[in-house]
């Protein structure tokens, strides 16, 4: 097999396993968690295998046609960046499966949807990070959003889950569309959608495209002002929060930033836009975390803060080399996933998630407490954890930036320090609030399974090990060089860089953070609630609900719900478009040859006059019977008018149809209340609608009348009818030109016409019985019938 097939297999394997999981889940006693882990493990294994075959510079592009005529092919780019994310996805996925297998209550029948969603998610994630074609990347990108939607809504009867799922899908999908527009513009401008070709220098980037793509990135990575969906997404089961909403999916924005950095890095907006939004998000997230009480909300806000930090780092076109960025990402994956799992365990064993109601759990579950401690330490950036080194290198970058752009750099530095201080305090509160202090009296506790505690402990251990011995990661990270990622070489990662400004700032942050924690603890976290104006999620929800309201008002205002307005609107549109086309080509319209002084046929003029007079009778006469008579008189004169057009067939038909219609109308009117009963008469008032009617009628009349004259002036000199008449005797064997056309030349029209009559008759008959289905729209549906039989009971 080729590398392509292996890679495709690695990507698709999890989704291919979905039916197996769904089927297996139908049996009650089966551990789906482990079954799910198998394809993930296999994918992981395959990825390792593929990466071992990669030659330096570790980038390979493989391609498989999919929609070649649109230029969309399954092209995959295997390089360090994608491999790194691929490993993270599979590795964390395995731990999450382990965790979920023990965490999720309920039968496998209920939970199989969860595992299916998880597997589907893994495929879409892997697809996203490996795609080379930007459109294919977008396809997978949106699929991750759908997977996330389904997983957030796993407990879908909970209104919170519904809200959270809706928010996340709407935000990520709509920002995704901006990304799509950006991708299309980039592809059209550069002539290719292939990332590898774009990275190789074919790209023609500009600020507008960057802004569009950045919106997509911000939406996915929960950057301000789109950050609000992430806390809402915490309605998902905890393994999902740990996996999708801290470790992997929200990192996609970071991933894409890394991907397009070589393309857009020199663009004017890069630093300002990404840096500004990133660092702003960092502060906002930290602030929101500081004021949250719910454990998952707190972690979600902290995640937002960290994501902002990561994006901000890329914005600075960092000088520390790509290893550092991988290191930051890895560090965050380790400790945030661990902390989410810890929270899950806490919730699992106490049923609570609110910091104010928790405390003193440390002695009851020491292993989890230890994991929690390590995670919180990394979060706060204590030495010997990965968080410390992250912070150090970031500070180095920031100090560099201050030298280049003093104002911007100082702002970013201040933001980082502020956010780090807040994060320190929050991390301290997180740990002490759960594990230390006195246990509230009404807290019920049951021990979690021992093995449930292992995955977070493993992750937490990672933060400690790699934080203490960062050198362990030097070689693997060096290997992960890739196409166009930051290839500036930098020094190896190390725990100790000597006494320098960064260390001083770090210490300062820790000290102030501790102080902040102590003061707030002393004050009892009274201010720990999110101010209303920052509740973006509620504003958004209100906006969506309000949308329904305003949509209704708008639809109402457009009169779409007021049927009597349809015809006036239609006619207005007709006149407006005809008038528009007339005005737009005013010069071309020729009325040459028109003259009022032409031969007026007295008889036809008289007939026309009589017809019009009778029609005015229809308007002005009071009684319906009188109006009907006027109408038939008008029809009679019209018949004569037809006759004067040398159309005997027409005249005969018209008079017969006229009389048949009159009989039918008479039958109808006999049943209607009479006009005098209803007190109706010719109505015309000074209200605007009367004038509107008048205006529209005059407009239609003038328009159609002038069309007749226009047609007269521009008549084609060789109408087909003349030829038909010539052939009428010769080829159609009839003398009556009209009849030969009707039954021979255009007999098909006549066939259609009698079909119309037949249908109209069927329809009319159908109206003569009333279907009993109960009141409208709220109606009880009938019991459905069977395909062919009909043994069901009547309602």
């Amino acid at each position, binding site marked *: 097999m080729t590398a392509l097939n292996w890679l495709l297999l690695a990507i698709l394997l999890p989704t291919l396993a979905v039916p197996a999981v769904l089927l297996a889940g139908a049996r009650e006693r089966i551990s789906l968690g482990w079954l799910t882990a198998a394809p993930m493990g296999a994918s992981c294994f395959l990825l390792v295998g593929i990466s071992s075959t990669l030659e330096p510079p570790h980038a390979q592009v493989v391609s498989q046609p999919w929609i070649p005529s649109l230029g969309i092919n399954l092209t995959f780019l295997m390089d360090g960046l994608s491999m790194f994310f691929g490993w993270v996805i599979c590795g964390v996925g395995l731990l999450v499966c382990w965790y979920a297998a023990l965490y999720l209550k309920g039968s496998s029948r209920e939970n199989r949807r969860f595992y299916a969603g998880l597997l589907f998610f893994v495929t879409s994630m892997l697809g996203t990070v490996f795609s080379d074609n930007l459109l294919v990347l977008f396809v997978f990108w949106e699929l991750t959003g*759908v997977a996330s939607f389904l997983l957030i809504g796993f407990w879908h009867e909970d209104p919170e889950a519904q809200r959270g799922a809706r928010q996340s899908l709407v935000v990520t999908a709509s920002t995704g569309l901006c990304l799509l527009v950006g991708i299309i513009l980039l592809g059209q401008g550069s002539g290719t959608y292939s990332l590898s070709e774009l990275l190789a220098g074919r790209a023609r980037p500009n600020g507008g495209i960057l802004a569009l793509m950045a919106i997509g990135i911000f939406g996915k990575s929960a950057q301000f002002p789109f950050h609000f969906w992430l806390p809402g997404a915490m309605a998902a089961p905890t393994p999902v929060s740990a996996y999708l909403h801290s470790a992997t999916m929200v990192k996609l924005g970071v991933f894409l930033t890394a991907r397009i950095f070589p393309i857009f890095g020199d663009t004017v907006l890069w630093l300002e836009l990404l840096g500004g939004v990133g660092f702003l998000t960092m502060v906002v997230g930290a602030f929101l975390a500081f004021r949250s009480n719910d454990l998952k909300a707190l972690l979600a806000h902290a995640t937002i803060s960290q994501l902002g930090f990561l994006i901000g780092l890329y914005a600075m076109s960092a000088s520390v080399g790509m290893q550092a960025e991988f290191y930051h990402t890895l560090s965050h994956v380790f400790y945030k996933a661990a902390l989410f799992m810890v929270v899950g365990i806490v919730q699992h064993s106490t049923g609570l998630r609110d910091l104010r109601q928790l405390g003193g759990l440390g002695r009851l579950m020491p292993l989890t407490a230890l994991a929690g401690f390590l995670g919180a330490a990394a979060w706060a950036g204590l030495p010997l954890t990965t968080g410390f080194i992250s912070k150090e290198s970031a500070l180095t970058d920031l100090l560099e930036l201050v030298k280049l752009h003093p104002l911007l750099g100082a702002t970013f530095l201040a933001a980082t320090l502020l956010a780090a201080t807040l994060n320190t305090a929050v991390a301290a509160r997180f740990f002490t609030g759960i594990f230390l202090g006195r246990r509230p009296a009404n807290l019920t506790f049951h021990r979690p399974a021992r093995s449930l505690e292992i995955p977070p402990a493993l992750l937490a251990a990672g933060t400690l090990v790699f934080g203490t011995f960062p050198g362990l990661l030097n070689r693997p990270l060096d290997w992960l060089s890739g196409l166009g990622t930051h290839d500036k070489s930098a020094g190896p990662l190390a725990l100790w860089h000597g006494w320098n400004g960064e260390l001083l700032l770090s210490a300062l942050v820790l000290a102030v953070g501790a102080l902040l924690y102590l003061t707030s603890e002393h004050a009892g976290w009274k201010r720990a609630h999110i101010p209303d104006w920052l509740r973006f999620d509620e504003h958004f929800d209100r906006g969506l609900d309000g949308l329904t309201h305003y949509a209704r008002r708008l639809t109402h205002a457009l009169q779409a719900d007021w049927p009597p307005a349809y015809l006036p609107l239609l006619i207005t549109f007709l006149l407006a478009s005809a008038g528009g086309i007339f005005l737009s080509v005013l010069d071309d319209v020729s009325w040459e040859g028109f003259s009022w002084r032409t031969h007026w046929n007295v008889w036809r003029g008289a007939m026309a006059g009589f017809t019009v007079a009778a029609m005015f009778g229809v308007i002005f006469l009071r009684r319906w019977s009188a109006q009907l008579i006027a109408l038939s008189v008008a029809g009679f004169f019209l018949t004569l008018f037809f006759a004067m057009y040398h159309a005997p067939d027409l005249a005969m038909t018209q008079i017969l149809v006229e009389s048949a219609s009159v009989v039918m109308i008479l039958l109808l009117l006999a049943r209607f209340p009479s006009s005098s009963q209803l007190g109706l008469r010719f109505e015309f008032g000074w209200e605007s609608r009367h004038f509107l009617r008048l205006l529209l009628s005059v407009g239609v009349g003038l328009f159609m009348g002038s069309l007749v004259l226009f047609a007269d002036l521009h008549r084609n000199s060789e109408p087909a009818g003349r030829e038909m008449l010539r052939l009428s005797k010769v080829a159609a064997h009839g003398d009556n030109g009209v009849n030969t056309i009707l039954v021979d030349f255009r007999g098909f029209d006549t066939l259609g016409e009698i079909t119309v009559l037949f249908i109209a008759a069927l329809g009319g008959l159908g109206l003569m019985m009333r279907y009993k289905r109960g009141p409208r729209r*709220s109606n009880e549906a009938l019991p459905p019938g069977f395909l062919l039989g*009909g043994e069901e009971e009547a309602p």
Partner: protein
Amino acid sequence: MNSLIWPFLLPILTALACSLAFGLPGVGRRVFVALSAAAQFVLALFLAVRTFQGEGVPLVLNIGGWSASLGIVLVLDGLAAIMLCLATFISLICILFSYAETPVRFEQPLRLPLMQLLVAGINLTFLTGDLFNLFVAFEIMLVASYALLTLEANDQDIKEAFPYLAVNIFGSALFLSAAGLAYALFGTLNMAHIAVRAAEMGDAFSVKLVVVLLLVVFGIKAGIFPLYYWLPNSYPILSFSLGAFYSGLLTKVGVYVILRMLCTVFPHTLDGIYGMLSWLAGLTMLLAVLGALSRDFIRGILSFHIVSQIGYMVLAIAFFTPLAIAACIFYVIHHIIVKSSLYLIGGTGLFYNRSDSLARMGGLAAASPWLAALFLLQALSLAGIPPLSGFWGKYLIFATGLEGGRYWLVGAAVLASILTLISMLKIWLAAFWQPAPEGGVSKPTPPIRAMTVLAGVMTCVSLGIGFGAEPVFRLSRVAAESLMNQSQYQEAVFSRLGKEAGQ
């Protein structure tokens, strides 16, 4: 000799057989109509294969043996073949669905004949190559649609048929006048012949006048702003099987004739009109999707969505590049399938919840995971989530729009997509994720399962369009190219000798 007449005659003969031989509804009649519908589908497939084997060169039938412009011709080109297949396919599925929907004892005896007559009208619309015959075909279709609309309406609903009728009768009068005007100005009614003479006139005022008149007429049928009002209130009174048929096909007939007129018949230089059309399309998709948000029952929401999606198709037409026309055709294919299947899914949901008002629905995800999966797929496809069929259509439209620098219109299209997603989520949350309403959810009975299977068949087709976008798109492109190739069309029509061709 070819069989172009049969897509029109078969349904009519079926309907006549129903009124003459099988007067009363019964199982035998159901089987007969289903077989006939299946035969029509097979015939359409056969014709489509023949058309596409000929690289899009249209097949022509001279009715009565008269040569073109004396008699009526039927022309089958790529687009018509595609539409024919879709129409017969949807009719087959909807007929089967209606069998499951109503027990045979309660069947309205006129329903099946009228449905067949409606199909005949639609098929003729696709086939005809004559402007006045198009009018007749429209009337067959419209009168059948009025009849079906009122056939099973109850006393509260029947009034909604009135505005539908009023608007469409006015449109018919306008169409008649437009056809007359076209005859006076071009001296012929044959479309190919009109094309020849219109090309000689270039973009004279007379040509534009006829085009605008026809666009207003077809705009009513397609549902372009502000001519769509008749649609969203009248469709909801239909039962779901008929609603699926109407929503899938009737408005798309309007789109089809707009395509036919602008691409095949009239010169390709009417830039002002394309510009106007594009802005109307933008307004259509935005205002209609807002209309969908204002509704709170499934049929109402879906009806407004039809209009909103029409906006995309018309937008693609208005961009008027070969790629854009191909995009439009692709979108039409996608939309017909997705919209009909959403109706079918909604109809199945109706039988679970005994109502399609969102306030009274719920619990469907638990009651029928299959139905939930089908709905989710189709709803996301409608909203344009990749790699489902709706995405490729939207992508093509965005891409052609961006290429032409129509940023505002693309922006409107993006916004409309987002709003579409929001309103589909509204259905999803209320009907599927919400806990079951009081009174619970019905148990799935065999008819309900049959409905789910039918919806599943449609969904599979739609998935096929999404994942196999390549062949579908290639077909669309062939169809678009032959559609825009006026000389090929004229050659095909005039090259067929008929009576008096030599004289």
